[in-house]
C-alpha cells in the first residue's frame, strides 16, 4: 500500500489542476475578505462570515472544485492505462481504491484549507471574530472540512467506478448543482410560505404542509447530503450539536466510499 500511496502522491504533486484550484480558492478567500470589509459599515460582520462563505453556499463552490479535482485526477489515470497497469502488476483492487481515496482526500483538504488559511490570516486580522466563541469557530471549520472530505469520497467512488473522465466530471458538477437547487427548494418549503389571502394586505404565514414523516426525512436528507450541509453551514446558524451531527454524517459517506466503493471496484470489469 505504501508504494501505491507514494505513486499517487508523485502524480498529485505534478498535478497542475491541483495547484490551479489551490490558487483559485485562495484568491476567492481574499475576495471574500475584501467583500466582507465592504459590508462593515452596514452590518455586524466578522471573519466568521467569511468562514461561512467558504462553504460555497451560493453556488456549491467547494463541491464543484472537488468534482473537477477528483474526476480529472482519476479519469486521466484510466485514460492513459496507468490504472490498468496497477491492476495487472498485482496492486490489489481494494488497495488501489483506498490509496486513491486517501490521496484525493488529502488534495481536497488542501484546497479547502487554501481558502481558510487566507481567512484565518487576513480575515481575523482585518475583521476579527466578533461574538463567536473559539470552539464554535473550530467546530464550524471541521464541519466544513469533513463536508469537503465527504464530497471527495463520493466523487472518488463515482470516478473509480465510471472509469471515464467526462462521465464523472459531468455527473459531479451537474449533480452538485441539481442537488443544490433541490436542497434550496426543499428548504424553502420546509420554512413555510407567506400566503396572501384575497383582498388582504397582511401576509399569513403558512407552515409547511407536508406530513411530519416527510418533513423529518427531508430535514435528515439535507443534513446528510454534502451539498445540503454546505447550504446549512453557510447560513451560519447552526448549534454546536447540529454541527457535530454533520461531521458524523460526513463520516458515513467516507466509510461508505472506503468500504462499499472498494468492494464494488473489485467486481467491475476494466478495459
Amino acid at each position, binding site marked *: *500500500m*505504501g*508504494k501505491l500511496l*507514494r505513486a499517487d502522491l508523485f502524480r498529485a504533486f505534478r498535478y497542475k489542476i491541483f495547484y490551479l484550484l489551490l490558487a483559485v480558492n485562495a484568491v476567492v478567500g481574499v475576495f471574500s475578505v475584501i467583500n466582507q470589509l465592504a459590508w462593515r459599515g452596514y452590518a455586524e460582520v466578522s471573519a466568521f462570515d467569511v468562514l461561512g462563505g467558504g462553504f460555497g453556499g451560493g453556488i456549491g463552490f467547494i463541491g464543484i472544485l472537488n468534482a473537477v479535482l477528483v474526476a480529472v485526477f482519476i479519469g486521466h489515470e484510466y485514460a492513459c492505462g496507468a490504472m490498468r497497469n496497477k491492476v495487472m502488476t498485482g496492486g490489489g483492487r481494494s488497495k488501489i481504491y483506498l490509496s486513491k481515496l486517501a490521496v484525493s482526500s488529502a488534495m481536497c483538504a488542501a484546497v479547502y484549507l487554501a481558502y481558510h488559511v487566507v481567512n484565518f490570516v487576513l480575515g481575523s486580522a482585518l475583521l476579527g471574530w466578533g461574538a463567536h466563541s473559539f470552539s464554535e469557530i473550530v467546530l464550524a471549520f471541521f464541519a466544513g472540512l469533513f463536508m469537503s472530505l465527504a464530497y471527495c469520497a463520493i466523487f472518488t467512488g463515482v470516478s473509480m467506478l465510471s472509469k471515464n473522465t467526462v462521465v464523472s466530471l459531468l455527473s459531479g458538477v451537474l449533480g452538485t448543482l441539481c442537488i443544490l437547487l433541490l436542497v434550496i427548494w426543499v428548504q424553502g418549503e420546509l420554512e413555510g410560505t407567506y400566503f396572501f389571502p384575497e383582498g388582504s394586505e397582511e401576509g399569513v404565514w403558512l407552515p409547511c404542509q407536508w406530513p411530519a414523516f416527510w418533513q423529518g426525512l427531508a430535514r435528515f436528507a439535507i443534513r446528510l447530503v454534502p451539498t445540503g450541509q454546505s447550504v446549512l453551514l453557510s447560513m451560519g446558524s447552526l448549534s454546536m450539536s447540529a454541527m457535530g451531527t454533520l461531521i458524523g454524517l460526513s463520516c458515513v459517506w467516507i466509510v461508505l466510499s472506503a468500504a462499499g466503493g472498494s468492494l464494488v471496484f473489485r467486481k467491475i470489469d476494466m478495459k
Partner: protein
Amino acid sequence: MTVALICSAAALALSAAVLAIKIVVMKRSLAELARQAEEKLREESNVPLSPDSADRDLCRLARSLSCRLDEVISLGRKYREGDMELKRAIADVSHDIRTPLTSAAGYVGLLKKSGLSGKQAEYLSVIDGRIAAMKKLTDELLSYSVAASDETPPELAETDMRAALEDALTQFYAAFEERGIVPAISLPESAVVRIADKDMLSRVFGNILNNAARYSGGDLCVTLREDGEILFENDAPALDEVSAKRLFDRFFTVENARGSTGLGLSIAKLFTERMGGSIGASYAGGRLCIRMKI
C-alpha cells in the same frame, strides 16, 4: 499559556506517532525482505526486492541484496547451459568418432580375408581388438551423452515393475550363467505398478545387472518390494565404503576395469531420477547393496 501547552503536547504526540509508525513499517519491511529474498532465489525470479519502507538504508540493503541474488541466479543458469552444451558437444564428438572407426573396422575385416603372413596376422588381430575396444568406449560415451543431453520428457505410464524386472533378469540369464552366478530372486505375488517410462526402466535394470554380472564377487540377490523398492545385493570384495558412494559418478571405475568407461551406472541414475525416482548404493560387510525406488 494553555494554548502553548496544548500545542507542544500535540506536537509531541504527533512525533511519537510518526516514529512509532516508522518503526513498525521498518520491522515489517525487514521480515518482508527476508521472505522475498528466499522466494526470489527459489523461483529464480527477476523481480528485485522491494521493501515497503522508504528508509534509505533499508532500500540500499534491498538493492545490494537484489544484485547479489541476480548474480547467483545468472551463474546458476550459465552453469546449466554450459553443462548442457558440454553434453551435446560430447554427443556430437562421439558421433563423429564413430564414422572413421566403423570404416577402419571394415577395412580391418577386409584385410583379414586377404591372406597375411603369421606376424602380420598377429599384428592385425591386435589392431582389430583395439578398434573393437574403442568402438565399445565410443558407444558407451555416446549413449551417456545422448541420454544426458536429451531433454525430451520421459513417457510416463503405469508400468508393471515386476514384469520389467523379470524381463531384464531373463535377458541377462546367459551372462550370469557364464560367470557361474545364480541369482536369488524374490518377487511379490502380484504386479507392482508404478508410474515410469518402460524403455528407461529396462535400460536402468540392464545397466545395473550388467554391472553386477561383470563385477560381482560370486552371487546376486534381487528383491522387489511391494512398495516399489528394488534391492540388488552382491558380494563385492574389491569395493569399500567410499567407492560405493561414488559408484554413480561419471567415469568412476573401480580397479580401472578394462573396457568399461564407468558410465553404465551414471546412466542408470540419470534415468531413474528423470522418472522421479531415487537410487543409491551402500556397502556393508563386504556386500554391495544398490537400492532403487520409483
